[in-house]
């Protein structure tokens, strides 16, 4: 069902004793309380937990868009806690893809141009290769006939497919999806998860997504449960 079989022995993500505390007014909220986790290459993993359990914080730490108070994060054997802001940006661009709950497409750009966004800032990719990658990603998500459509001309499911294509266009090692189905109906949610599973298998990309939808649990190979900032199983 998923691509765990092809996973290499070296983990793509290694977390050691992550601690993160937010201050909300006068209250301190411990979002992560010493989380340690390892994700192998090619895994299709769901992080499951109730709202406020810390699953989004965990994904944000792995995606280098937030910083832990303590602990280490290694992505593809790189200790990201020692990287500068620009180095983290480059790491995200080359090794990660992001899928957001609210799609986050740029409304004035058509489907093709939205998928093109992460490739524009990678000087190593030639215009020809860029086009090949975009076409491939769009074809993989089944939206070839909509390349010139603007986001508001697409359904919610189609928009999330565009977001998936954008995440995949840079050929990342790891795709992080924070509640990618939260804004979708049940049928579309299943289709999106099926698509992600299919791409995980086809492209050998590691997927890590957060969800609180119990109905999706039986479709993933690995489930990480998180509760009150602690991984329970």
């Amino acid at each position, binding site marked *: 069902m998923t691509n765990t079989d092809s996973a290499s022995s070296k983990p793509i993500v290694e977390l050691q004793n992550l601690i993160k505390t937010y201050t909300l007014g006068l209250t301190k909220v411990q979002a992560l309380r010493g989380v340690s986790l390892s994700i192998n290459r090619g895994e299709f993993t769901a992080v499951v937990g109730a709202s406020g359990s810390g699953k989004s914080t965990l994904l*944000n730490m792995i995606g280098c868009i*937030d*910083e832990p108070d303590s602990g280490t994060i290694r992505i593809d054997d790189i200790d990201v806690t020692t990287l500068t802001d620009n180095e983290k*940006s480059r790491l995200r661009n080359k090794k990660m893809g*992001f899928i957001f709950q609210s799609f986050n497409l740029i409304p*004035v750009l058509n489907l093709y141009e939205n998928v093109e966004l*992460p490739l524009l800032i990678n000087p190593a990719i030639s215009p020809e290769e860029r086009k090949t990658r975009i076409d491939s990603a769009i074809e993989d998500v089944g939206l070839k006939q909509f390349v010139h459509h603007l986001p508001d001309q697409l359904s919610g499911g189609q928009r999330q497919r565009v977001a998936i294509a954008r995440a995949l266009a840079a050929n990342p090692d790891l795709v992080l999806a924070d509640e990618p189905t939260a804004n979708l109906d049940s049928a579309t949610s299943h289709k999106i998860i099926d698509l992600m599973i299919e791409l995980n298998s086809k492209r050998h990309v590691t997927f890590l997504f957060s969800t609180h939808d119990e109905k999706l649990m039986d479709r993933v190979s690995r489930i990480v449960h998180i509760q009150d900032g602690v991984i329970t199983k």
Partner: protein
Amino acid sequence: MTAEWRLAFRNLLRNKRRNVATGTAIALGFAALLAIGGYINRVEKYLRVYTIFGARTGHIIVYKKDGFENFYVKPKEYSLTPSDQQAIREVLQELPGIELHGGILQGQGLVGNGCRTFPFLAMGIDPLLDKQLRDHPMVSRWTQKFKDLQKGRGISEYGAEMGAVSIAEGLAHILHKNKVFDDFPAGHKPQLIADCTASDLFELTNGDANIQLAAGTWDGMMSALDGEIVSTFNTGVTETNSSAIVTSLQHLQKLYETENVSTYSIWLNDSASLKNTVAKLTAGLKKKNLNMDIYTWLVEDMSPYYSGTMSFLRTMVGFVTFILATVVVLSIFNAATMTVIERAQEIGMMRSLGYTKHQIRQMFIREITALSVLSLLAGAVVAAAGIEFINRLEISFSPPGVAGSIQLLLSPNIATVSVATVLIPLLAIGTTVVAIRSMVNKPITILLMGSNR
């Protein structure tokens, strides 16, 4: 067009109403700056040409050593002798770019109409040089009023023995001399006015073009000469329009019983060579062991009217420009702030995709640059149309201190456009400040800012 610029232009379409409002503010601000600059350029050119050609100041003025300070007290001692003048001419023959030159004699005295006398300020100039200055292309272009005499013909049109005098129209008015030499038949003799209290005095004074000039000679004697008013003119300046007289150098020298001149004026083909020419002239005169002071027309003492008026106008316009620029920049600052706030989630998304802070700043700067350039082009078109419209209306106006009025011609030049385009870096700086402030937070914070709005 690169994808980055394509994105910038597309993003401008996202909030059309705001961007149109902002663009309109920029365009109108730019157009206003161009129009103001055009006005200043017009006035500056008028005053510059008036000073150099109209007032016969010249680009370069040579005085006897300390002559500027002492000429009116001790004219004989601090004036240029014929040998001084000859020496200057010899130096000038060796210098390139000299268009015109000649000695100028200035003096004061009383002018009378047979009954009453008034003070005059006289200038003696070679009649041919006077004509050349009056017919100069710069005069035709910028101070037509000086070129066109109010009445009559220039002093160069009459024989030296006649004592032709051109007087300011204000002086002609108070002298009750409303007719010039050509208005009378040939051989017309001056009328003697027996009764200065006669009821028809106005007609009597207007019965001829004769005036009497009286002054103290440089040796302390009294001297008087007859003169014939051959023309009247507008000095262009209120304070001299009721006292100025222009006559031939020879005629005025006769009045003061001298062969000297007060100053020697030099006009250049190209004012850009002013500094270079002064240096060469100084060296040439030094070589001849001549102890003289050399001034340029830009020295405040040589052109007090130009310097004072332009200083006043530049201060005024600088203030207005500052206000305009502030309004425009604040409009952009406001628009950029709103845009950044509205697009916080998008900024967070782009940071997640790997865009650096610098790249996102550049994205916003590209947008504002695109908006600014489009708006400035629109502003330039609006300004061009508006300026053409105003110029065609032939509106007359009186700049500060100018006698009479001149046509309101808005003439923007390259310098004006350059000053106006200072808006572009100001706008870019404003946007950068906003973008930098927005980028202080971590990507996740920006993402959450957007999603929590």
